[in-house]
């Protein structure tokens, strides 16, 4: 029960990610909010993988354990994929933001609302 703060951190990260997403107007800040949201999800996976008094699932020069107590390897593989996907998505969104700024000279979503009709 002493490690419950990990779950609290996950909830707080998700909450702040969604809150920033809803209340901020700058395009770049929305990308940052998405990064916070994804960090929350990754932390959740890693918290699921944890086991008390367990070591990393690596056999090279591992301590000699009587029973094999290792943390779960699957969530680590899953968040590896998720981190790369999150990085790629942020890069693409920032490229979009660069183009939007070049075309409209603003990054404020309220000011960008008016450009709905094209030519």
């Amino acid at each position: 029960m002493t490690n419950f703060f990990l779950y609290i951190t996950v909830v707080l990260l998700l909450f702040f990610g969604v809150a920033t997403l809803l209340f901020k107007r700058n395009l770049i800040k929305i990308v940052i909010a998405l990064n916070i949201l994804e960090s929350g999800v990754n932390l959740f996976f890693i918290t699921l993988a944890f086991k008390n008094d367990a070591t990393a699932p690596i056999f090279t020069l591992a301590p000699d354990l009587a029973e094999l107590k290792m943390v779960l390897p699957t969530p680590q593989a899953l968040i590896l994929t998720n981190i790369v996907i999150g990085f790629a998505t942020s890069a693409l969104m920032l490229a979009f933001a660069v183009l939007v700024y070049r075309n409209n000279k603003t990054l404020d979503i309220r000011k960008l609302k008016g450009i709905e009709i094209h030519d």
Partner: protein
Amino acid sequence: MTDNFPVLIIALPLLVAFILPIVSRAGVKPRNILVFLVILAVNIMLLSLVPEVMIRGKILYSVIGSADPARVVPEGLTFPVRIVLRVDGFSLFMALLSGFFSLVCFIFSLRFIPEHGRKNYYVLLFLLMMTGMLGLEFTNDLFNFFVFLEILSISGAALVSYRTDRSHPPYAGYKYLLVSTIATSFFLLGVALCYAQYGSLNMEYIHRFMNHTLLDRMALVFMLAALAMKAGAAPMHMWVPDTYSEAPAPVTAMLVISSQASLYGLFRICFTLFGNPISRDTINYHTLGWIIIIMGVLSMFVGVTMALVQHDVKRLMAFHSVSQTGYLLMGIGVGVAVYTLNDGGAAYNSYGRVAMAGGIFHIMNYSISKGLLFLTAGVMFRRFGTCDLDRMTGMAHRDTVTTAVFIIGALAISGIPPFNAFSSKLLLYESVYRFSPVLSIIAMFVSVLTLASFTKVFYSAFLGPCRSDILVDEEPLPAGMIAGMTIMAAAIIVTGFLPSHTLNLLVDPAISGLVTIF
């Protein structure tokens, strides 16, 4: 060799996509021929799977990377340990649609998108979009589904902003990617909750041991909301008009079928993951069905009323897309709502199954008609240089083929006999009436408004005097564009005149693949 086909269907386009930047240096023609051959090969492989899966009703499993690909659970164990691909009726139905769409849209975009240095990237992203769709439809593993959903979303978002010289497409791409990323993050949260309960990521394994606890219901809510957001159902439909109108026309057609792929995911989650009504405390299928029906009715109404007041032809069709997605949700929602064993399956067998058949048949009809309409909108854009209905007139004089296919598509999607959507809408009306008469009347009313909006488009753009001062491009259409549109119109006519054959061949195996209890 056929055992390897499910993996080859996904891996072969990936291989070609990875070597495409090198092949593109050799010229335009080798690149076009190579990609066309790959898409054709994928379609042939899909068609060759039809006798085994659809007619004989066998479900193909393929384990990736193991020494024995046909054996899902290894020796001595009771659970699968690798990624499993599963091809059943519903997967193959959606995959056939995706392959068909990719072929037609690729032929259309050969000449529609002008040759440019950027077009190499366009072809590459197109191929990867098709791969994402096919991978999503074949996989039986939750995290693999997430990865292919991301491939589909990112390639779609990049293709939406293909015309970087205009001011709005990059912003539309940004919005589409934002909505997709939020949706997939919450989907991953649902997957994590499922993993926390069962220790496995395989859909069939979780289905067998599903306990319907509170955490499982939360996972269902997250996954459902995420996939409904990706499919463009109201109240999360805000991204659809902007995205569909800013993308080039063949990309919009591909976006239509990728929204249907998200709907495929939704139905898979509802039935294959959570559809286990024989355990003791199960989720309330009646409530779940009504939630899906409410989303469907809202989409229908919001879509068609907003479509009536639009001036931009692509935005009109995009709102209309939202409304037709509502039909699908309503049909499948009725099927879910009566999916229970309390009365021995009587309600399901009498009208629930018909509602699901109507819904799944309508996926096919709606996608093909809507894709065709978006391609004709592309022709309109090419002729007049704009998508504004107030500035278009008199296209029927020059482009008779386009007018004919537009009439076919518009009549088809409004549900006029003898075209294909008539059969699917009739199935929906009859079965939904048995469930609740009010829904059926709303559906019919929306159908009438649909016809009204397309009459408006036809009147503005096609009829009227032929003026050559507003035309931008006067040359006759290239053969590729005409071929693409006529193939789709032919598919509409064929499935319209042979509805019972189509139902028996394609839709019934789809339902038996999806619903495995009755």
